[in-house]
């Protein structure tokens, strides 16, 4: 294969994989009755395009599968008949086989081909091809306005924009030293326009990393369908706010977490149809996913109308004054309480909690026994460039994500709120050995979800926009840091995971007022 061939193959794989996502989503919409009028036509066009691309790059099994799917769809379209459930299932299986062959892990396809042949009556190659060729011209024009770029290149641009910002800070500092009387009007104007351009560049480059939540929904719909079928349950999935955009890297974390949460909802939340009917609920269970931007964060809520968390567990949470999420994610929780129904929920949720924490997000759970559970994931829009408040403790600089800072106060005057917010020493939280901060030391109020903590440090340095550098993989075990940042003066700031500041147990509780 020539270099060009390898590039085309890569592009074809990426495009075909997206088309397959769309095909699977459309087939599932046929199954749950929410399909568009033109669903058969759009499925036909998608498979036709995959077939064309596959023959160009010489993936013969992919081409044959796509061709056979296309035939079934062509006949359906010609007769205008609805897609029957067995045909939908066959097409889904064929889509799975096609994906395996795209990934190069495919099994022999004869069986699937035979199944497809049985599903549709065989005719000659569809005449609509001519018409489609006409449409293909349109599609190609449209696709020329988008460019496929390796994600690593986009990341590199964002990184360079961050470095350019750092360079700009150093330049400003050097200029201020060289020109104590200030820059000339012409120079000042140029500097200002440079600053504006850099700001625009920053926004545009960050925007390139953003993808809508809808881009991860295909596999999720599929997971719900498969899980519900194997558990003998009937489940509908509705999604709102799918256009909400998030950084690609965080979307990956979100995707994995959502699969865990949705799996729990189907396995442990939604009851069997008979059980639901007996409880006066509709036979079909409902899982709703809602995504919405919320003050620098994105909140994704997954709500099911199933049986909810057992009342005993809710009681335990309130007795221990912990949140439901804390109780449900305690290691060994499920076995200790003997609530077998919750075992899956505990294990999966623990992974979700850790995943959210590693990106500076958090998890809350609300549940009403008998009426369902709502799991809320709250995560930052991006970690590539992050606004932080820089503080100093024991001579070192730390960053706290600005989205989590409620207020920063230079005196201890606010500590008269009845002691309801625990006061913690930053050094204690991170495990640094240091004498306590002096009286009157600055305090930040940090909030994660409903939990707040007042954190004392030696000095507030100021706000900064930083490029977050990952500590993974070598230092991924250090849970209290999101990462590190290199500051304008070359120093390294460690960026704190806000939930490690508000987490329990408090190393040192603020004494309540007498």
């Amino acid at each position, binding site marked *: 294969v020539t270099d060009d061939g390898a590039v085309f193959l890569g592009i074809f794989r990426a495009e075909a994989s997206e088309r397959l996502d769309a095909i699977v989503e459309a087939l599932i919409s046929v199954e749950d009755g929410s399909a568009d009028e033109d669903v058969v036509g759009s499925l036909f066009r998608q498979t036709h395009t995959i077939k064309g691309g596959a023959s160009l790059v010489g993936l013969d099994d992919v081409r044959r599968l796509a061709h056979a799917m296309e035939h079934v769809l062509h006949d359906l379209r010609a007769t205008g008949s609805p897609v029957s459930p067995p045909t939908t299932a066959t097409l889904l299986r064929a889509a799975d086989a096609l994906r395996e062959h795209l990934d190069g892990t495919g099994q022999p396809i004869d069986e699937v081909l035979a199944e497809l042949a049985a599903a549709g009556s065989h005719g000659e190659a569809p005449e609509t091809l001519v018409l489609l060729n006409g449409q293909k011209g349109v599609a190609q024009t449209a696709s020329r306005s988008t460019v496929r770029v390796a994600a690593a290149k986009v990341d590199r641009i964002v*990184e360079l924009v961050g*470095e350019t910002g750092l360079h700009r800070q150093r330049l400003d500092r050097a200029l201020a030293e060289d020109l104590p009387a200030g820059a000339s009007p012409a120079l000042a104007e140029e500097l200002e326009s440079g600053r504006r351009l850099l700001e625009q560049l920053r926004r545009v480059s960050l925007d390139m990393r953003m993808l809508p939540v809808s881009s991860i929904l295909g596999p999720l719909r599929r997971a719900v369908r498969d899980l519900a079928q194997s558990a003998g349950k009937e489940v509908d999935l509705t999604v709102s706010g799918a256009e909400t955009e998030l950084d690609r890297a965080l979307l990956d974390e979100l995707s994995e977490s959502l699969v865990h949460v949705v799996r729990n909802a189907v396995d442990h939340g939604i009851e069997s149809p008979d059980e639901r009917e007996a409880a006066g609920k509709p036979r079909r269970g409902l899982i709703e996913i809602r995504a919405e931007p919320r003050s620098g964060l994105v909140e994704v809520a997954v709500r099911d109308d199933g049986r909810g968390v057992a009342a005993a567990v809710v009681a335990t949470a309130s007795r221990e004054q912990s949140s439901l999420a804390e109780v449900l994610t305690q290691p060994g929780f499920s076995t200790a309480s003997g609530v077998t129904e919750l075992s899956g929920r505990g294990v999966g949720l623990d992974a979700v909690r850790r995943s959210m924490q590693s990106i500076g997000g958090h998890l809350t759970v609300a549940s009403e026994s008998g009426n369902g559970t709502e799991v809320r994931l709250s995560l930052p829009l991006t970690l590539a460039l992050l606004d932080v408040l820089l503080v100093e403790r*024991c001579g*070192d600089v730390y960053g706290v994500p600005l989205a989590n800072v409620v207020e920063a106060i230079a005196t201890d005057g606010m500590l008269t709120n009845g002691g309801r917010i625990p006061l913690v020493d930053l*050094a204690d939280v*991170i*495990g*640094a050995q240091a004498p306590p901060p002096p009286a009157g030391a600055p305090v930040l109020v940090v909030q994660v979800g409903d939990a707040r903590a007042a954190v004392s440090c030696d000095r507030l340095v100021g706000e900064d926009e930083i490029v977050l*550098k*990952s*500590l993974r*993989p*070598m*230092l*991924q*075990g*250090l*849970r*209290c*840091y999101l*990462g*590190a940042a*290199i500051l304008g003066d*070359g*120093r*390294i700031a*460690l960026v704190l995971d806000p939930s490690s500041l508000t987490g329990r147990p408090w190393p040192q509780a603020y004494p309540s007022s007498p």
Partner: protein
Amino acid sequence: VKSFDRHAASNGPTARPAEASYLRLRLGQEQYALPLADVAVVIVREELRVVPGSGEALLGVVNRRGKVLPVFDLACALSLGSAGATTRVVVVEDGDRVAGLAVKGVSGIGPLPTLEETSSAVLRGVTVVDGARIGVLDLVALLDELQESATS
């Protein structure tokens, strides 16, 4: 050897290290070696940013070309006790795992006699040069151990 850069060396017309070359390291009284293929570069140890809450083998992090490089005390990681003052940092790479190993110094580059088996998990084997035992490090096992030790 003052400094060494594999990428720079391989670009030179003549300076091409032999297949089974090793970088020999000094750690207190002990001698160790790393396959040259595992070593990206040897740098002079700079001031480190301490990371509170980490295990004692992690000396801190340093800004290296815009990336955050964790630097470990190799002697401490090998349970030799701290080597005391370290002057050089050997930057090693295993895929996306990049770490700096602080050592007292590097004593040479060259081939080594055939290795003998050893029971140590982080050693590929041991050999003897001029009457001195040299342990050859297994980078993957060593990084596994360092990754583990960063938290405790």
